[in-house]
């Protein structure tokens, strides 16, 4: 049974926090008109160690986003006074490039496309799980650092060369199928961060539907058998209840 957040303690999301000890503190703004949902998100983000504010309508949200130094904005699609997409549009028009994740009850493919076109950086249909949201927000925040530009990715003694398409663990060369290579590449780009199954399906396979059976798990276990099997220190970790993470466990 997957261990869902601790209900008894003061920090329900402590377990997720524990999975990522090297978490960098982020400043987040939640723009959501449902006060319960906003409070829940702010509280949850604070518990895992981030700084979070909330705005309950589009105008307030825009003003706060313009004034504060936020790392990521979490914007509900339908807001009073000013629609979520309009808030993002206004920010982009003013030259603010703060990454924005759109939350929407409209989960269809073309709605997602509309959201991304309006300047959103990621899209999450409601209802979502907090671990999914957290993983995506952290990836967005980290993306600003520009890690994806590197041609050689390293995690511990695992090395992936994006130009020659070669993967080494220590001195040993590991041969991967093209898709396995892309899977590993994505995981290594986000080393130290939780990556959910949906994120993998979207970014490695470019599918936005629910494949019913958890096909991703099987792909991960194949990859794991290639990069971790026979090595004393595992690098590819399962974050229970959330997803996967590649990280140098020695630290």
């Amino acid at each position, binding site marked *: *049974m*997957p*261990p*869902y957040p601790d*209900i*008894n303690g003061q920090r329900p999301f402590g377990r997720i926090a524990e999975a990522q000890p090297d978490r960098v503190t982020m400043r987040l703004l939640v723009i959501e008109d449902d006060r319960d949902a906003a409070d829940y998100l702010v509280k949850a983000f604070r518990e895992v160690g981030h700084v979070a504010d909330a705005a309950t309508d589009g105008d307030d949200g825009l003003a706060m986003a313009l004034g504060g130094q936020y790392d990521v904005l979490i914007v509900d699609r339908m807001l009073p006074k000013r629609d979520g997409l309009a808030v993002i549009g206004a920010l982009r028009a003013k030259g603010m490039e703060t990454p924005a994740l759109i939350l929407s009850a409209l*989960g*269809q*493919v*073309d709605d997602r*496309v509309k959201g991304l076109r309006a300047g959103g950086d990621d899209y999450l249909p409601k*209802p979502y*799980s907090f671990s999914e949201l957290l993983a995506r927000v952290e990836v967005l925040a980290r993306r600003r650092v520009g890690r994806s530009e590197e041609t050689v990715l390293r995690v511990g003694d695992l090395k992936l060369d994006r130009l020659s398409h070669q993967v080494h663990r220590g001195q040993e060369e590991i041969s991967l199928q093209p*898709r396995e290579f892309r899977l590993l590449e994505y995981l290594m780009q986000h080393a130290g961060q939780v990556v959910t199954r949906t994120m993998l399906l979207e970014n490695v*396979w470019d*599918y*936005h*539907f*629910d*494949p*019913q*059976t958890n*096909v991703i798990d*099987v*792909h991960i*276990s*194949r990859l794991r058998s290639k990069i971790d099997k026979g090595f004393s220190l595992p690098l590819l970790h399962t974050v229970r209840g959330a997803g996967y993470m590649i990280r140098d466990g020695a630290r």
Partner: protein
Amino acid sequence: MTALGKLFRTTTFKLTLVYLTVFALFAAFLLGYFALNTRRLITEQITDTVNAEITGLSEQYRLGGIRRLVAVVDARARRPGSSLYLVTTFAGESLAGNVTSLPPGTLDNAGWTETAYRRLDESDSADHPEHRALARVFQLPGGFRLLVGRDLDERERLYNIVISAGRWSIAIVIVLGLVGGLFVTRRVLRRVDAMTETTRTIMQGDLGGRLPVAGTGDELDRLAENLNLMLERIEALMHGLKEVSDNIAHDLKTPLTRLRNRAEQALRSAKKESEYRAALENTIEESDGLIRTFNALLMIARAESGQARENMSEFDAAEIAHDIGELYEPLAEEKGIALKVEAETPAPLKGNRELISQALANLVDNSIKYTEPRNATVNGVPGEIVVRALSEGDRILLTVADSGPGIPEADRSRVIERFVRLEQSRSKAGSGLGLSLASAVARLHGGELTLADNNPGLKSIIALPRGGPVQIGG
């Protein structure tokens, strides 16, 4: 009066009026032009004749003096006809001719004149009306004057005939036009009324009603036929919607009830923290399943309503077969099933890539679920799934063939319906919506999903038109 008012307000009647006005004006113009031209032609003829006669008479005068002229004019004046002759002295005394009672001063000016006159043989009687004539006065050398002219009665008569014919024909055009217009309008109005009547009953909730089609194949029939097609579509959609809501009611309420029961039970009897935790974990799992079912339902409804038609693009179906095969291959292998893809040649297709991928994924997922592993053979055949993409005429076929238990022929159309799972598969996980979604996606693209026997096993075929869905009526 209201019926008549309704008649007058119709488009047909207004059109009739416009056409009628145009035709009447045209007829009037035509006849007027004809009348004026006839009149001009006659006038021209008169002037020509008169000129010739004057030339002839002045020649006589030149040859034989006034006496010869008078003799010739006398002779001509006696002939019956419409010609006018008069020869006078300088002082105006008549020497010869057949004209009298000209208005004073007529002879003073040489040249053309239109004048009233009386014939000499009618001058005594007052009841003879004055005639009008077109005449030319000619100054002869020696002070004599010669008048030659033609009576205009004929011209006027002809002119009047044409004008009155014109009046009559315009009157007839108007009367016939109005009557015809009213007739046509009433016919059209009756049909439109019948349509309106049907529409009203449909609006009152009887979706089974259809507009009457007269069978003449005219524009009203075409309109009625198209509206009927539309009504059929609406009825199908309404039916689908009702089915969806029924299914939602049935298949979402069941897990919701379960969810609620478990939560209640946990509240009532759980004592330890671990028990609470287990109950809550269960709740989340159950609600995730609910969300999944709900999303699938929404997706089907959307595909069926045709909304996803906007996101169509060109892509290769063979590539999709390879991608989906690659996505599911590890899962199949884990279960001991061989998953093969046979799609060598490109199969270009226009459609919604995401939805078609999902439909194919559902079929493969289904096959993996129901196919036994390779070592545990079914009917002596090892567990195997083959995904194919091939072109066949103007269709693209995406097929998934497995060696599982298959579906009895009698059940095949039923399992495509929402939520239908055969009894033996109740134990397997899944919303029971996979095949329905694949079918809805196929229909969205103007194609279909069929299930066939793979001898042994099941062969699911998504057949799609290469060029994407054909728009109805467009």
